[in-house]
């Protein structure tokens, strides 16, 4: 087994009395996509900023591409590319000028420094706006420019803090496709997200963090199976009923046969497996996407157990 490209051990960070990271452990293999999932204030951004050499850890060790973030920050910076939680582009320059600047600062060769900005503007659907100052861009356009800037340098590790916040569904799909391409080319991706769908779609592995610790990690599927079994969901005039199932054709057939024999009036039915939402609620005791109440599905699932 090769050494992990990101290794975090016992990471601690506090601001005054507030402990933000409380012994966080994390490993990411080369070429892997890891999603950090956690509610607001869980410490996702703090972790990302320490990995990107912007913050100094209080305790613990963090290495990226084999280099310690505190002792060899230059080496770490040469290996990574960061897209922070908020767009980091120059408002007074045009989109094209922003990318040209970043290309020069990334020490790309002459040819690449010339061709990549245009190719990335094209890829992120910004060619038409390329010569306009960024201050005239919409929020989503800024975000796309920001992401384009991060892909300029062909980093070994792409660090993305909530990359799709503020993107419309099409741009989000486009971005997922580009990230997929980068991963196939060998890039390692560490991303934070509050969108469970995103973690599900993009990530090989999900690490759920809460109060500065990893409270669960594994593939999305393994996390879901920790939470509970699949069930058949029946929507009737009086409400929703759930019946546990192992998900096999025979078992579902048996359940539906039972339903028919009892003469229940069913409006619709479906086989449901637990969502990451359920995982989240079960593990952290709060809904994943803050500000929204827990989905009825998740709440009922808790009641059943």
């Amino acid at each position, binding site marked *: 087994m090769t050494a992990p490209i990101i290794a975090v051990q016992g990471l601690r960070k506090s601001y005054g009395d507030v402990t933000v990271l409380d012994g966080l452990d994390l490993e990411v293999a080369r070429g892997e996509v890891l999603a950090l999932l956690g509610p607001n204030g869980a410490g996702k951004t703090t972790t990302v900023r320490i990995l990107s050499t*912007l913050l100094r850890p209080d305790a613990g060790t963090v290495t990226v591409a084999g280099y310690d973030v505190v002792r060899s920050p230059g080496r770490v910076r040469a290996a990574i590319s960061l897209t922070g939680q908020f767009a980091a582009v120059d408002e007074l320059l045009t989109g094209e*000028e922003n990318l040209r600047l970043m290309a020069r600062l*990334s020490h790309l060769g002459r040819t690449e420094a010339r061709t990549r900005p245009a*190719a990335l503007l*094209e890829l992120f659907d910004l060619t038409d706006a390329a010569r306009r100052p960024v201050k005239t861009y919409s929020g989503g356009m800024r975000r796309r420019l920001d992401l384009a800037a991060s892909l300029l*340098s062909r980093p070994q590790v792409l660090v993305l803090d909530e990359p799709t916040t503020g993107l419309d569904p099409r741009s989000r799909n486009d971005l997922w496709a580009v990230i997929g391409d980068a991963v196939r080319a060998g890039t390692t991706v560490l991303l934070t997200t509050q969108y469970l769908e995103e973690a599900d779609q993009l990530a090989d592995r999900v690490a759920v963090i809460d109060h500065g610790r990893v409270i669960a990690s594994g593939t999305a599927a393994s996390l879901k199976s920790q939470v509970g079994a699949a069930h058949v969901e029946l929507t009737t005039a009086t409400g929703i009923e759930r019946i546990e199932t192992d998900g096999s054709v025979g078992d579902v057939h048996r359940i539906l046969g039972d339903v028919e024999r009892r003469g229940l009036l069913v409006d619709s039915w479906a086989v449901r497996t637990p969502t990451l939402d359920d995982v989240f609620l079960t593990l952290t005791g709060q809904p994943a996407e803050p500000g929204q109440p827990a989905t009825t599905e998740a709440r009922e699932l808790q009641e059943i157990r």
Partner: protein
Amino acid sequence: MTTLDLTPRVDQSPTGNLGDTLALVGRCLRRSTRQLDTLLLAVMLPVMLLLMFVYVFGGAIQSGMDYVDFVVPGILLLTAGYGASTTAVDVASDITAGIMDRFRSMPIRATGVMTGHVAASMARNAVSTALVIGIALLIGFDAQASALDWLAAIGLIALYVAALTWIAVAIGVVASGPEAASGFSFAILFLPYVSSAFVPVDSMPSVLSSIAAWNPVTPVADTVRGLLLGTPVGSSAAQAIAWCVGLLLVGWVAASVLFRRQR
């Protein structure tokens, strides 16, 4: 669809180079040309003050010479000081806009970003100083200076701008935001008033005159005045250079350390 190469580069240099700094100088020069309102203010403000001092207060101030001749060197320093200090706002905006974090996470020279701001400040000041000199000559500023004197005066003003700009950069890095940083430019605007820039120090009440005697603007103003009007320069030249070099070093070291500081 696209043939964009996304293969990770494993050979990226962990250190910056001169090219980074040049690219960042280019960035700040571009930004300056897109903030014409700021540039205009940096020129209009001193010109208006010049006209006001000469035509409104001038008659009442005993300077021992034509007041326009006395005041122009002071106005030049005020122009320079104000133009330099707005750099604090630029640096603070870079931080709040998040772009500073992007720069700090890249393998570039720590001082490159700030050198970019300083170079742009020098360029902006060259423009505004030239305009103020032009207007001063139009309203009767009667310089008694050789080309070499002019060169020395301009050199000293440039050093003064560089020193104040580096201090401004350090202030911009520690300021909580652009608003706080703009307080600094306001303070710098007042620095010349308690110096020999606009009135002779010995005409001030004793408390103020001892402050003025210690104000770094005083030796700089006296030296520029001496060079341009042929009045004695004396020890003020050495003091002026010492002050400027000292402030420049303090600003440069503070800015460099603060920039890479990880909290």
